Every structure is written in structure tokens, then in C-alpha cells.
């Protein structure tokens, strides 16, 4: 169809044979790209002059953060531990709930199309909810505090791991499972014996990867009142207490780096 609009170039060989060289689409792509960029700028009110004139405010805040006020650290420990507890517990609950859900969503294990598609629908519906929104709703239901944050993280982890895991289950080698069925073993024990050993390393690895992200997610959940370090971060920013903000961010940076290094180390050993 495109070749009808952009007629291909015809190369003729000395012996008279013809080869059609398709026209490059690049000029068209560039034009479309520029048009979209123009309308994006119009729509979002992006203004380069504001960006340039105000950038010094960023460096001002950054300058205020350095050096961080180390004495503030004794006020950081508790919310930091809350954040860690929220992400650990939330990840563990979410990962545990994701396991049965992933089995129900795997079409090679569950033969009922209704169950498979219903489970997948639930998983993708839950996944579309941003963690911050879930946390906000959770604070309405459960009150302010770390419980709301834990629930929000568990919900996100459940949907993320559930989706990853059912896709892994569907690519698994079914030979051993077939043999289990031929021996006369029920579905769930057969799954546990033949398929769980194959998916276990990826399952644990995905859960750890999710935990890494959850520590970062948990840090902002305090914004909506769901407990943890975000609470004091929000508060200090509003008081323009930038040296305390610097301390909070430094503590967070070190914690996240440590967790990621540890999780990375374990995940490398798994696969």
C-alpha cells in the first residue's frame, strides 16, 4: 500500500533485468516526528526560557542539602525502618499471593478458559492502579500509617509477580508434568513436583527484583500518609529544611543501594 504512494526506484542492470528498490521511509518518519513534537510543546506548555532561568533554584536547593545535617539522622531511623518493614512485608505477602494466582492464570495448567481469563483480567486490572493511588485508598480504609503502605505494596507486587510468573509457567517444559499425570498424580502435587522446581529460581528472582523497586516505592508512599520515610521527607521539604532533606535522601540512597546490591548478589547465584 505504501509502495503505491511512494513509487519504488527502479534499477536496471546492463542485461536489462529490473530490481525495484523500495523508497526509504525516513523523510516521512522525520516529518511526522516533528509535527508531533510541535503539538506536544503546545499542549504541555513546555517553556525552555523558564527552564533556563529557574534552573539556578535547583542548584540553590542542592547547595543547601550539602552538607546534610547528620544530627538529624536520629529522627530518620524510625521512618526508614518503617519504610523497609513496609516493603519487605508487602513484597512477601504480594509474592505469596501471586503464586496461586499465576497457576490459575496459566493456560497450560488450568484447562478452564473462564478461570484463566478471569484471573488474568484481575491481574491486569490491579496492575493498572498506580501504587500511590492504592496507598491513598488504603489510607481511607485502614487509616493513616504503615499498614496502608504495606497493603499498597502487597497489591502492586501481587499483580506484577502474578503476571510475570504465569508467563513463565506457560513456557515451562511440560514433559515431567505429563509423566506425573500418567502416574496418576493429582494436579496440584504434580505441579509442585514437576513445574515448581523449574519456576522457583525465576520466581524468587522476580520477587527480589520487585523488592528492590518496592523500597523506592515505599519511600514516596508517606506523601499520601501511608507511613515511612516519605512522611518526614514531605514535611522537611515544606519547612524548607533542606539540610535535613539532604540527610533523608542520603540515608535512602545508601539503603536502596545496599538492598539492590544484596538482591543482585542473590539473584546472580540463582540463575
Amino acid at each position, binding site marked *: 500500500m505504501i509502495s503505491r504512494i511512494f513509487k519504488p526506484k527502479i534499477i536496471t542492470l546492463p542485461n536489462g533485468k529490473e530490481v525495484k528498490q523500495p523508497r526509504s521511509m525516513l523523510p516521512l518518519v522525520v516529518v511526522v516526528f516533528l509535527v508531533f513534537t510541535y503539538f506536544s510543546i503546545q499542549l504541555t506548555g513546555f517553556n525552555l526560557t523558564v527552564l533556563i532561568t529557574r534552573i539556578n533554584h535547583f542548584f540553590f536547593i542542592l547547595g543547601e542539602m550539602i552538607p546534610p545535617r547528620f544530627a538529624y539522622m536520629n529522627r530518620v531511623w524510625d521512618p526508614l525502618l518503617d519504610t523497609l518493614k513496609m516493603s519487605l512485608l508487602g513484597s512477601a505477602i504480594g509474592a505469596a499471593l501471586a503464586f496461586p494466582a499465576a497457576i490459575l492464570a496459566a493456560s497450560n495448567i488450568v484447562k478452564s478458559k473462564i478461570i484463566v481469563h478471569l484471573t488474568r483480567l484481575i491481574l491486569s486490572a490491579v496492575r493498572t492502579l498506580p501504587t500511590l493511588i492504592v496507598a491513598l485508598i488504603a489510607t481511607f480504609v485502614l487509616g493513616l500509617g504503615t499498614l496502608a503502605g504495606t497493603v499498597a505494596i502487597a497489591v502492586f507486587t501481587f499483580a506484577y509477580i502474578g503476571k510475570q510468573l504465569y508467563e513463565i509457567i506457560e513456557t515451562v517444559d511440560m*514433559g*515431567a508434568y*505429563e*509423566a*506425573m*499425570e500418567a*502416574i496418576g498424580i493429582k494436579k*496440584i*502435587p504434580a505441579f509442585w513436583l514437576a513445574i515448581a*522446581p523449574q519456576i522457583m529460581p525465576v520466581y524468587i528472582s522476580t520477587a527480589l527484583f520487585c523488592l528492590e523497586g518496592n523500597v523506592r516505592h515505599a519511600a514516596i508512599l508517606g506523601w499520601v500518609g501511608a507511613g515511612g520515610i516519605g512522611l518526614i521527607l514531605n514535611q522537611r521539604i515544606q519547612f524548607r529544611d533542606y539540610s535535613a532533606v539532604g540527610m533523608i535522601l542520603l540515608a535512602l540512597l545508601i539503603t536502596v543501594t545496599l538492598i539492590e546490591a544484596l538482591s543482585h548478589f542473590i539473584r546472580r547465584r540463582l540463575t
Partner: protein
Amino acid sequence: MISFEHVTKVYPSGVKALDDVTLNFDQGEFVAIIGRSGAGKSTLIRAINKMHDITDGTLTVDGIPVRQLKGKSLRAFRHEIGMIFQSFNLVNRTTVIKNVLAARVPKMSFFRVLFGLFHKEDKIAALTALDKVGILEKAYVRVDQLSGGQQQRVALARTLVQNPKIILADEPVAALDPVTAKQVMDYFLNINRELGISILINIHHVELALEYADRIVGIRDGVVLFDGPPDQVSEDVIHQIYGGETEAEIV
């Protein structure tokens, strides 16, 4: 005794894998089923333990009508029949003995399965079976460390622990080299002679079939073309089963 009476299997795609098959197998027979790929060998074997459903006719094993089995009765029925696969179908990421112990799982509570709590007599049964197929020393080795021939012997041990009356083998030696294939066939023969277990085997290698089996069943396009002892398999029979063009390569 396994009895096929006018058994037909039509796949949803319309392919007729079994076409009015009538066959009887007595207890203790060693039967080789030969035919080209897609001739219906696999369907024939897998119909017996209902891994594939048949669409018409009657199939009974020791008087039990296979078509009517489902759920618990099907699982109990399958437990009495061993099955061996071309690709061994073992759990690669775990040890040999755990694979063999799977044969005892139908009789265990889920709690015990979940935590791998096997009784001592189950372990002894598993190890005895491994000894019977000559790989006792590999009991605690991970399956993915073993060669293909050793893996098929693990599968055979797993089947023996089921204490079956019949063993169905779907191309058990197709993935093995000729020497290993003969070793595995020797184990089948031993099991058949010593324990009186019926063996039904699908096999590509006609010469192995003729060497080991008491009875040859030749099928083509789902129809049984030959049924008789190996010494009656003439070149003409092979020609019928496999079609003209490749006979030189087979014999």
C-alpha cells in the same frame, strides 16, 4: 488383557489417527508397534491409559472400560500402568531418587508431598528399582548431570516403583544412540521376562523391534496392516507399512 474393539480416534483437526482398530494384547506380551511418524502409533499407546481420548469403539484393560474413567478412578487406573516417553520426562532440576519417588506420590498426603517427607519403605523401593536398572550409585545426583541413556533408565525405575502390570513406551529409544538404545531395550526385555510385565513399545527402528519383541503390530494411517510374530515380517510387509520410497534405508 488389553482389548481394542473397533477403536477410532479422530482429532478435532479431522485427522483420523486410529481407524477401526481391533487388537488384543495378553498379559506378559512384548509388543513392538511400528509405522511411520504420524501413522497413529503414539495415539494407539496413549489411548490405553487415556492420555488421549478415543472417539469411537470400545477399549478395555482387564475388563475396565477406559473411556468411562475420569477423576479419581482414572488416576487409580493410570497408577497401575507405567509409561515411558521419548524425552524421558523427568524433573531435571532435582535428584534421581526424587524423580523415582514420584511413583509413590498418589498414595501420599499433600502435606508429605509438599515437604518431600517420604517413608523409608518408599525410599527402599525407589533405590531397589534404581539398582534393578543399574544406576543405584546415581541416586542422589541431579538428573541434568546424567546422560540420555541413564535418564531413560531413571524413568524406567520410576515406572517400576509403580509396580505396573503394563508398561507403555512411546519411542523410548528414539533420542538415544544405537548402543545406548540396545542397552535400554535389554532392560525392557529383562523386566518383561523377570516380572511378567506387558510391554507395548512404539519404535522407529525396525531391526530393534524384530530383535526384541514377541509380536509386531504394523500400522499405517491409523489402520493395522500387520499383526504377528517377528519372523513373519517380510520385506513385503515392511514395504506396506512404510511405503516404497524409503524401504532401502529401513531394512
